[in-house]
């Protein structure tokens, strides 16, 4: 089996968390250094994973399989494919940056902060890498603990309310997830006599009846839709974002809310293909509502962080739109957005955090004129803002474009309404930007300092990566594609769904041949 790379990715931050927790509380510098060391090491392992990932492979790679609770058929199975690969890599990237961004802001109980932060990374990595449903649930629940304590310990004024809301709301979703997982396992046992929660075995099993499949789909959906968050299950997100520390927000917007979307593609699609096809229109409607509604409500926020929080609702709408377009191009776009959104929104949250550290407010009305005093901050904010709006050249556009194109192929009205979100995105970003940055500086804004080297170093990699992926997304798309293709083929194999992309294939080829001929003729004409 070789070196268990995926296990190492999960365990490294866990070891770090334990080591940091055992330190004496006064050794903050050591805690910080260990934090960088362990998140850095994890990032290195992720880089190694990215490097050795086989691009054309449609299946799971680096599979690690160990029995865990034999009596219940629970195994500890890990594997990575094109859909989870980049979520793991992005997580690996965001954690060291998150620590770097916390330097100034986190001044008390640093040791505990670092420990919880590392535990959070373990939970997230586990969620994206595990292929056993029970293990998945365990990580899914494990995530709540560090997140709860991070918000409660280092959040803003209403942190208790936010932490509790997050805990109960997503916990409620998890309850549905656990119940559905157990039932799925038991039904499989009743049918085949084998008790297992191995995802791949269950995906190959075709014994579900129609009603059971729909109910189980809804059970999984409860967990995923809350986490995604899909309208109307989104209200926890702005509250939690506003109260969470910057690094928490970055990780929350960056990877935690992607877990819902990931759950749909990874689990719902393969376990409940018929229900996914049948219920796709409902999810598309919710996605489209999320895109427009999230954008409109974002525009009305007076708190800069809430603007970005609501914009995440709109962006996740695009992700769900792409996923449930049930087309390769749409799923490509959705997964790509899941990679791109952490970069752009992460940068925006980091910048808002930096503004907050200077002005001690996030109220847009108390800002104004920052452009005069902080040109570097403003320049980076402009870049992050347009990356978030989905300006071509930045990664956000690639994902949005492909998701919309997929939705258009699937059912045009969804894409047409969702495309209006493009206008609202400009409104909800440019309007607050104008109020916060343009005009004359006065009061505390006039005395504000521009970004220092460390802060620039935190934000620039994210934006540079977003720009690179916007101009050259091929390396990422090439790795996502086989997995997206597998998902769509899975529908075609198990249901009577046919991808609208297929019918076009042949004509396309014919035309390409024709064009080549014309070009050849034109070239001959020259000579």
């Amino acid at each position: 089996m070789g070196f268990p790379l995926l296990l190492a990715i999960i365990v490294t931050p866990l070891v770090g968390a334990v080591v940091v927790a055992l330190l004496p509380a006064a050794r903050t510098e050591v805690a910080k250094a260990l934090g960088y060391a362990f998140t850095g090491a994890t990032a290195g392992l992720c880089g190694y994973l990215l490097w050795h990932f086989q691009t054309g492979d449609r299946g799971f790679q680096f599979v690690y399989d160990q029995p865990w609770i034999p009596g219940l058929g629970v195994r500890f199975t890990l594997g990575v494919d094109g859909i989870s690969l980049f979520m793991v890599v992005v997580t690996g990237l965001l954690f060291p940056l998150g620590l770097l961004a916390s330097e100034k802001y986190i001044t008390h109980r640093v040791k505990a902060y670092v420990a919880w932060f590392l535990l959070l990374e373990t939970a997230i990595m586990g969620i994206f890498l595990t292929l056993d449903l029970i293990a998945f649930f365990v990580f899914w629940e494990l995530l709540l603990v560090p997140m709860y304590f991070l918000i409660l310990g280092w959040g803003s004024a209403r942190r208790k309310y936010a932490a509790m809301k997050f805990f109960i709301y997503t916990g409620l979703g998890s309850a549905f997830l656990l119940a559905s997982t157990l039932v799925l396992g038991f039904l499989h046992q009743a049918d085949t006599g084998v008790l297992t929660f191995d995802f791949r075995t269950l995906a190959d099993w075709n014994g579900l009846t129609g009603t059971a499949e729909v109910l189980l789909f809804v059970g999984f959906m409860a967990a995923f839709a809350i986490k995604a968050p899909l309208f109307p299950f989104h209200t926890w997100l702005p509250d939690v974002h506003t109260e969470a520390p910057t690094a928490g927000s970055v990780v929350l917007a960056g990877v935690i809310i992607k877990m819902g979307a990931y759950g749909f593609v990874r689990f719902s699609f393969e376990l409940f293909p018929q229900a996914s096809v049948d219920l796709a229109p409902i999810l598309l409607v919710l996605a489209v509502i999320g895109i427009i509604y999230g954008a409109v409500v974002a525009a009305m926020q007076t708190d800069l962080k809430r603007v970005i929080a609501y914009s995440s609702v709109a962006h996740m709408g695009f992700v769900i739109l792409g996923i449930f377009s049930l087309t390769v191009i749409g799923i490509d776009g959705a997964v790509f957005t899941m990679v791109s959104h952490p970069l752009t929104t992460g940068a925006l949250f980091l910048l808002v955090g930096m503004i907050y550290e200077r002005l001690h407010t996030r109220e847009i009305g108390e800002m104004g004129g920052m452009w005069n005093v902080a040109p570097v901050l403003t320049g980076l904010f402009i870049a992050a803002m347009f990356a978030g709006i989905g300006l071509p050249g930045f990664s956000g556009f690639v994902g949005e474009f492909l998701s919309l194109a997929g939705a258009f192929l699937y059912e045009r009205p969804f894409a047409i309404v969702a495309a209006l979100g493009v206008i609202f995105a400009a409104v909800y970003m440019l309007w607050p930007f104008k109020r916060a940055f343009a005009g004359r500086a006065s009061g505390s804004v006039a005395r504000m300092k521009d970004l220092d080297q460390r802060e620039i170093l935190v934000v620039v990699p994210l934006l540079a990566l977003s720009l690179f992926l916007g101009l050259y997304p091929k390396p990422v798309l090439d790795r996502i594609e086989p997995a997206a293709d597998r998902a769509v083929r899975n529908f075609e194999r198990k249901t009577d769904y046919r991808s609208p992309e297929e019918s076009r294939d042949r004509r396309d080829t014919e035309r390409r041949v024709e064009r080549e001929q014309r070009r050849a003729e034109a070239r001959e004409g020259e000579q």
Partner: protein
Amino acid sequence: MNASDILDYLGIIPLLPLAGAVILLLAGRRIGEPRAGWLATGMMALAFLGSLVALFALLSLPAEGRLQVNQVFTWLPAGTFSVGMGTQADPLSVTWLLLVTGVGLLIHLYSIGYMHGDPLFSRFFAYLNLFAASMLILVVADNLLMTFLGWEGVGLCSYLLISFWYRRNDAANAGKKAFVTNRVGDVGFLLAMFLIIATYGTLEYTAMAPAAEIISAGTATAIALLLMVGAMGKSAQLPLHLWLTDAMEGPTPVSALIHAATMVTAGVFLMCRAYPFLEVSHDASVVIMWIGAITALLAGTVAIVQPDIKRALAYSTISQLGYMFLAIGVGGYEAAVFMVLCHAFYKGCLFLGAGSVIHGNGDNQDMRIMGRYRKFLPVTAFAMVIAWLAIAGIPPFAGFWAKDEILVEAYAHGDYGVWIVGTAAALLTAVYMTRLIFLTFFGNARFEGADAALAVPVVSGGSDEGDPAVATAHGPHGSDGHDGDEDPFEDHPTVVFGEPPRPGRLHGHRPHESPVLMLVPIVVLAGLSAVGGLLNLPFGKLDFLHQFLEPVFEGAKGVKATTAQKLTAEGLSVLMALIGVSIALLVYRRGLRSPDRDPLVDRLRPVSTLTGSAYYWDAGVTRFVGGPGERGASWLNRVFDARIVDGAVNGTAWLFQRAGRAASRVQDGYVRRYALGILLGTVAVVCFVLLWAGR
């Protein structure tokens, strides 16, 4: 290296100003004032040279072989769909390359003088170079999506440059409005691309002609009209025109380069690339033709009574762009391109001239308090007079040939309705331009202290030193300098219709001529406005541009106008131009009796109030968005989201909590314990339901 090898390197041209932009963004402040401008200008000069090389390389190929596509790399591969980054060298792209780099070079040069002393000097040139790069990407692209990349890039730069003086609330708002309005158009562009992907799968331009033949006429109409929505946004056609006049808040070189000569013609470029769909879809052509004609006419009626020199020119631009779309609608693609070129010459000249006037008279844009400026700005006056004759359609200047070719095409095509509207708009053009020139340069001087200023002998040449009044009058950037004693009107350089004139706007400055650096581009553009017609004379084999562009539009069913048709259409339009000039001369020959008495406005009331206010469309949209629109959004946020959606969540949580309390009768305050109980209970209930229902 033979010609086609050279054309494979077309992609270098946009990279030159892009490199300039990157350098200036990173190290602009260190590079400092004059050098940053020269660096950016140098990049444009290189890009212009590159475009010339491309032109000669293209000309060395046989006419039918002038198409060279070079796929550089795959940009977006997804499923069965794939689109690349590549360049397409053909007469259309090379024409636009020369336009953008040529006029761009002149305006960069001009900006070095105009932006002198601005604290954000190097940032301005970074944006300007970034704009040029985006615009060049837009035109060299070999597919729609890459054009869209440039399309949004120019939108970004337009936003940044309109809001360049971001301290002014109006400027910041105008930039935002421009971007958002353009995004409305972009939705059309995006949907057109999706429709193309859905129907034939590739966004490449070379695939459009074969594709148009196989798709249904309805689809072709839809694609053409959706692209037109995009073009309406970028090229400020009705009803998406309302951002362009506000865009005048930007520095004047920006108005000249982006909002007159180049970016606003991107819509025309797009429709030229999409001509195969128009050839298939008569319906789409008719719609486009009428949008163009109505825009040309209505914008003309608005321009005629504007007091602000830049706003008058902006409405004029909208009107002239209308002509271009009229041409495209009647199938006169070459005529549209010809108009784009000529318009860039004379409107570029007029805007730069207007900038020279504004720069030279204490930031005043109100024509009602100008007058007799030819005494103070002789070179500017001379150049603008030529451009005036060109735009008014007086032979043999450029505008005559361009506009008349369009009107001849419309007439020969049998579209008499648009022909009449277009000819009427020609009359308006002559009137508003004559009014503008005479209010500014001729007639009586109406600014404060005019008599004293006129008494002093005028020193020509425009050196800023030696005239103490002038030395402090540094352009619109003055607003950055004196924060202490604020002029309440300083934040509003724009003069909207109906605003009373304030003779003190000049702040006691005597109008003066601009430095040589600014005059050279103005004079060059004036020269081009005079002789631009030579590009495409409608006699025998002298229609060079037409011949050059013909292979691009192969298969276009153009109508060959008979000599009689030509004479009728041209004769009538020249007549209209002469009538227009005469009317305006009668009214404005001597200037205004008093700054607050504009005879055209006063005599045409209440019509002039209606047209001067741009038919209240802009105000109406603003009021709707700011009124019911904002109230609705606010309701969604405050009531629906906070009370109903979130209220349901909190209500449910509260209910559970109450139920938990009632069941356990223990009130120890540990919410977490309830939470755990709730979760376990839910698991049990859901398990039961699922097992029971799933049997």
